[in-house]
């Protein structure tokens, strides 16, 4: 069962972008490519940590392989 809603995923992406001093595009959506937002692999690790904090859930790092879009974050599974 998904522990991350699309809304939480979008909010978290915006927060990490802001913290990394990257421009927060107004039209981020579920199909937005993480790479197109200027997020590198370390930023995606940051997203992972933030989502763990927000959901108070230990997530399975192996489910983070192949993350491409904001919507993919919803697929992260608990450990």
């Amino acid at each position: 069962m998904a522990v991350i809603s699309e809304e939480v995923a979008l909010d978290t992406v915006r927060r990490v972008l802001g913290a990394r001093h990257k421009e927060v595009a107004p039209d981020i959506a579920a199909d937005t490519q993480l790479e197109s937002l200027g997020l590198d692999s370390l930023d995606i690790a940051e997203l992972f940590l933030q989502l763990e904090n927000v959901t108070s859930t230990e997530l399975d790092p192996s489910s983070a392989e192949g993350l491409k879009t904001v919507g993919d974050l919803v697929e992260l599974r608990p450990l």
Partner: protein
Amino acid sequence: MALDQHTAEPPGASRDAIGSHYDVGVGFFEQWLDPTLTYSSALWEAGDTLETAQLRKLDYAASEAGAVGARRVLDVGCGWGSMLTRLVEEHGVEAAVGLTLSETQRDRIAGWDDPRREVRLEHWHEHEPDAPYDAIVSIGALEHFVRHGTSRADKVRTYREFLSRCRRWLAPGGRLYVQAICKGNARLTAKALADARFVFEEVFPQSDVPWPAELVQATEWLFDLVRLRNDADHYVQTLDAWRERLLARREEGEREVGAGAVEHYDRYLRTAREHFAEGHAGLLRVTLAAV
């Protein structure tokens, strides 16, 4: 489609990225590495000094690779030449060939003017041996073979390309010995992430380390796994020894490369030590036999 090996861009860190860390001046590294200038984890036993532990590591690599008494041996990522020297002076190797992307490392070894020790300023992707090798070693170089952010599939593909070339360069029955930092399974923390950002953005740009499984997967149908050790604690001990020496000669170092550079290397040694001690990183020593 097969890439033309002579025109395709070599994978991993560029020469500039390598130079940014290794080419600050050999005099600085002489101040805090052991006298052989071996810049990778040692292999420690009780009573060792940094130098004896580094020689023990070089001897272990030579033994595992089957390089003792061999005619021709390749060292991929030869650093300042400690392995090449150990091979020809202690292990009876007739020709030890080293590859490096660092000009200061190349210059130091070339300056020895010893026909038994040959150094080439070459990426492994560019290397074409004059004759097969009886053994190959690669110590602390694999960390530069892929860039940070590379997908798991692409990392395995690059490691496999390296292993495939090694197998082609080896004489029948030859062995390859690899020592490399690997990822550890400790849970990521905000501090560990910030430290990783420092290491991969400021210390070793354009580099990344493998998961053990990525390297092992890349060996399939090319090499049999003979032995695999994870000696993270040996890297902790090595980093402690380096840092103790760096701090003991801090003023000398600052005169050589400047206070900012000394602080940068000090922060790197501290950060790396924590990563190994806390399980965010491991140290692979892998012995492989060509099939």
